[in-house]
């Protein structure tokens, strides 16, 4: 789920993970009705929130064992799972230090490791990489990919287009609490007529004559560039080139711009739909 700050991503996760109740609607997670059987939903899911859900006063290992106890694992199995997950998330060395002393990336890894203790089949990850440095973010991506290849369904929220493009099979764009578009990254890119060929000229006179000859183009008189709408296929590109040749127009630079998620994002969550931010400090 992709959306700008304040679009309602965290609220959506809170509702779907049974943390708060929905005002309206008919919601099912893993086949269980959220309103009538939240406990069955809870048994099927794992949640790693935006703000680390670890107990800072106890050690990483104690956090893990706490989860094992709450999932009613037998003692020996709890210890085994704890040791395995701490190892997998590169936390073995820090296991006996209080979680409050962990760095942001370590806390996030511990958080996710705690979520995995119960081997949930559905995992909600609310902005799992927000505030992480590039290396930690990359690590987190690898972890998420591994989960997905293990068959876990991951519901991920993010405000980073790159992240959605990298990780998601299906993307929903959330704007102002409503889903503005939904589909694969490619489907979404096709929604937006963002593709164009850009011609740049050095000579203002060549620019003027090209603009007059081409007619249906977007002009940028400052930069002396013209944008011709195009999907960027070879056939379309050749048509443009042929046409430029017959009109005897010579551009100094030609670039092909294919639509990316940025275009989709800005088109769907543009300034007209500026989110209404809740007043956090009003208390």
């Amino acid at each position, binding site marked *: 789920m992709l959306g700008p700050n304040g679009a309602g991503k965290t609220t959506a996760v809170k509702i779907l993970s*049974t943390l708060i109740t929905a005002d309206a609607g008919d919601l099912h997670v893993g086949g269980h009705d959220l309103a009538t059987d939240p406990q069955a939903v809870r048994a099927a*899911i794992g949640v790693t929130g935006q703000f680390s859900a670890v*107990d800072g006063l106890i050690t990483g290992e104690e*956090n893990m064992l*706490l989860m094992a106890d709450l999932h009613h694992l037998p003692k020996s199995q709890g210890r085994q799972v704890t040791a395995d997950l701490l190892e997998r998330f590169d936390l073995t060395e820090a296991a006996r230090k209080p979680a409050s002393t962990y760095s942001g990336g370590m806390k996030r890894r511990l958080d996710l490791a705690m979520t995995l203790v119960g081997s949930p089949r559905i995992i909600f990850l609310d902005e799992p990489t927000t505030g992480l440095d590039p290396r930690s973010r990359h690590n987190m991506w690898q972890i998420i990919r591994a989960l997905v290849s293990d068959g876990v369904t991951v519901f991920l929220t993010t405000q980073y287009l790159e992240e959605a493009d990298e990780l998601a099979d299906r993307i929903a764009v959330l704007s102002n609490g409503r889903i503005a578009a939904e589909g694969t990254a490619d489907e979404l890119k096709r929604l937006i007529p963002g593709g164009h060929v850009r011609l740049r000229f050095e000579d203002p006179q060549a620019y003027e004559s090209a603009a007059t000859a081409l007619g249906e183009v977007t002009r940028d008189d400052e930069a002396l560039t013209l944008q011709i709408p195009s999907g960027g296929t070879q056939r379309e590109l050749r048509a443009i080139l042929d046409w430029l040749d017959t009109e005897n127009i010579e551009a100094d630079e030609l670039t092909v711009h294919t639509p990316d998620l940025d275009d989709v994002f800005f088109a769907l969550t543009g300034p007209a739909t500026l989110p209404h931010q809740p007043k956090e400090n009003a208390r």
Partner: protein
Amino acid sequence: MSTLPLAVRDSTTMLRRNLLHARRYPSLTLNLLLTPIMMLLLFVYIFGDVMSAGIGGGNADRSDYIAYIVPGILMMTIGSTVIGAAVSVSTDMAEGVIARFRTMAIHRGSVIIGHVVGSVLQVLASLLLVAAVALAIGFRSTDATALEWLAAFALLALFALALTWIAVGMGLASPNAEAASNMAMPLILLPLISSAFIPADTMPGWFQPIAQYQPFTPAIETLRGLLLGTEIGNNGWIAITWCIALSALGYLWSTSLFNRDPK
């Protein structure tokens, strides 16, 4: 797993977590413990001579006043240490891990029950420490039988449970630790205006109802009766009624606060 074993198991897990917190960060409990011990030493050694004279009609010695004040100090210990429960509950509720607990298939009440049982155990440990100080400065029970000792212990535990439930409700109702600590302040002030330090009937007439109609006075009078053989009268039943009513009130208040959607 059916409800009761699940409740017991998850509550035990939560209790272990809270005791781990208390063991690793004991400063909060120990700080709160200072108040009743300071009060005990202050009233016995600084104000003691005047107090003893007032109590015994002019010719009592200090040991009489020690005997008079210790039951009140024990009750005050409960009032002061449960403030720790209010503070730690409100701190805990701000932690992300509580949101995690809410999304897990665990017994819903176990978070609160873990806090309550943990707090009662901490209060009992504090009572032992204060009782040890009281014994060290010369407190002796005059004629309490084993049964009366047992009843005294049960009364202290019941009173601790009642005040803990109220304190937990206060902790849940407060947005932060400071607010929780302020809200729980009456729990340490109430003993000061009870019969803990001076008999209620020596107070000004208009004030006596305030001292009389509050939970600490009947509980202190009952404890005095059990340990020192003074007249208990109705106070036993009144104290037990207060305990049950406060527990029920605190329980309903706390669970309804906890079951609200978090902010």
